[in-house]
């Protein structure tokens, strides 16, 4: 493997204390990073230090700790801005997670832009969190949700998308990478086509940011959302990038402290920029942890991470294909390192329980993507999702465990 000369996966593994743990007495084979990624020591240290050495509320006090805490918190915002190549800090809003970021846009943009008869375009590849928020606002505003179909390989059908785009379309919301089957969606092309019709686009980047460099200006995304915990950061912190031209027009999502300019009982004026959408005390330490995680992955470099993961994906796909009676769900030519599969006659839940005893952690179920499961006519799949710290031993352990399942049910 050529990339191994510059990319040392064993060194990366040593940065993650979880890999010292034994699971049921076995080596941990963690293939569930798509659900939530493990945390490197630098992030754990940053979290500890933020609580132990610099903690106070942000944007409030004039005292030393509040100032220090604010500097670190706002420093994390700058790290996120630079990482996404956003034009300004006002375009970077901290949220609880991806779900909250999408709900924010759905409720706020939706309230502003949707009228009865309008349409929202999604795709069959979406996670429930990029479906249900749109259904809620659509119902309230009398709008309709449409979904772009996919082919058997799990690819987004661009021509079908073009057919759905119309003057009724008020927003397009699609995932960058399918959480359930790994398809990388050609979002730049989708955005360009939507913009031709004057329609803004939200990209759900939850499964993309751990695997690839994202440049929101290059994509020309109107909204780009992701969650920190899949990017080796703590839970409770997510990001909404939004173009200023939209954020300035959008009404506040939640009311509270920090999002106001001046409050009287007669009339309240709102803060501008990101503050308008950040009511209440934010996840301070979690944001600092996110900034640290982003610096950590950037030190390794997404070119190397991507190459390593693609080589693992190819190896895993090849090895899993060798197993009898196994069907890989989703075979798009452009995929992130996610392999979803089913085994004839053996339910994913049984597979998950049995291979867990061998220390192999995978996700089994519908992956919060039931419309996609319905498309493939399966109730659920087994999903092995890889991250930069996985190696070939992980693939071998998965395959060995799958053979054990087959013997068990033979």
């Amino acid at each position, binding site marked *: 493997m050529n990339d191994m000369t510059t990319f040392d996966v064993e060194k990366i593994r040593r940065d993650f204390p979880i890999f010292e743990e034994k699971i049921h007495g076995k080596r941990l084979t963690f293939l569930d990073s798509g659900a939530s990624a493990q945390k490197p020591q630098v992030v754990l240290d940053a979290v500890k230090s933020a609580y132990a050495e610099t903690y106070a509320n942000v944007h409030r006090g004039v005292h030393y700790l509040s100032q220090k805490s604010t500097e670190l918190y706002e420093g994390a915002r700058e790290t996120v801005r630079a990482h996404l190549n956003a034009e300004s800090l006002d375009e970077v809003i901290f949220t609880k997670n991806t779900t909250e970021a999408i709900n924010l846009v759905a409720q706020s943009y939706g309230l502003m832009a949707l009228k009865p008869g309008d349409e929202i375009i999604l795709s069959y590849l979406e996670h429930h969190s990029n479906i249900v928020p749109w259904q809620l606002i659509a119902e309230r505003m009398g709008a309709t949700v449409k979904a772009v179909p996919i082919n058997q390989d799990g690819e987004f059908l661009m021509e079908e998308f073009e057919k759905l785009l119309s003057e009724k379309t008020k927003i397009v919301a699609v995932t960058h990478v399918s959480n359930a089957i790994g398809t990388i969606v050609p979002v730049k092309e989708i955005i360009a086509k939507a913009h031709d019709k004057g329609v803004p686009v939200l990209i759900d980047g939850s499964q993309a940011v751990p695997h690839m460099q994202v440049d929101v200006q290059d994509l020309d995304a109107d909204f780009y959302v992701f969650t920190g915990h899949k990017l080796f950061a703590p839970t409770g912190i997510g990001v909404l990038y939004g173009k200023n031209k939209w954020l300035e027009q959008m009404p506040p999502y939640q009311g509270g402290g920090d999002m106001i300019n001046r409050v009287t009982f007669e009339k309240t004026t709102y803060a501008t920029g990101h503050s308008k959408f950040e009511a209440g005390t934010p996840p301070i330490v979690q944001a600092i942890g996110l900034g640290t995680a982003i610096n950590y992955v950037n030190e390794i470099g997404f070119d190397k991470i991507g190459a390593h993961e693609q080589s693992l994906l190819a190896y895993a796909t090849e090895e899993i294909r060798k197993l009898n009676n196994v069907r890989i769900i989703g075979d798009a030519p452009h995929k992130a390192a996610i392999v979803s599969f089913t085994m004839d*006659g053996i339910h994913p839940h049984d597979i998950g329980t049995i291979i867990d005893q061998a220390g192999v952690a995978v996700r089994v179920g519908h992956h919060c993507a039931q419309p996609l499961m319905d498309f493939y006519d399966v109730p659920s799949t087994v999903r092995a999702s890889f991250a930069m710290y996985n190696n070939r031993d992980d693939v071998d352990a998965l395959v060995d465990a799958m053979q054990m399942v087959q013997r*068990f049910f033979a």
Partner: protein
Amino acid sequence: MMDDLKSLYQEVILDHSKSPRNFGKIEPHTTEGHGDNPLCGDQVTLYVNVDDAGIITDISFEGKGCAISTASTSLLTQLVKGKSKGEATELFGQFQDMVTSSPEDTNRSEAPDELKVLAGVKQFPMRVKCATLSWHALKAALENKAALATSE
């Protein structure tokens, strides 16, 4: 490791999951109950005939599920056939007490041997819902609720 697995997937369980008893839809039926496991997307529908005296004279099921869920449903149908509604409800209670670590009613009698093959589920808390899904569906059917039962 294999011991826990062997106790979960006993021969009887594997047998019932591969060849479920009373599988299919009985027509006509007096009531039915549907169970949905939102965690895994599994579904089961029980078709039940209850006579005027409240006896379950026939029962069958359809659905997609894991080995635990399918075997549990298959065993359920064998066990409650010929029982009264009250007896079936009592069996549900005994079954729940057996598979959960904190029994609701410590005075309740033990589950019958036919159900004890599923006692291993207790060691796998994430799988308890797989085993109880069809019992919830049965309860819905017997209460004649059109509403959906979930294992939540």
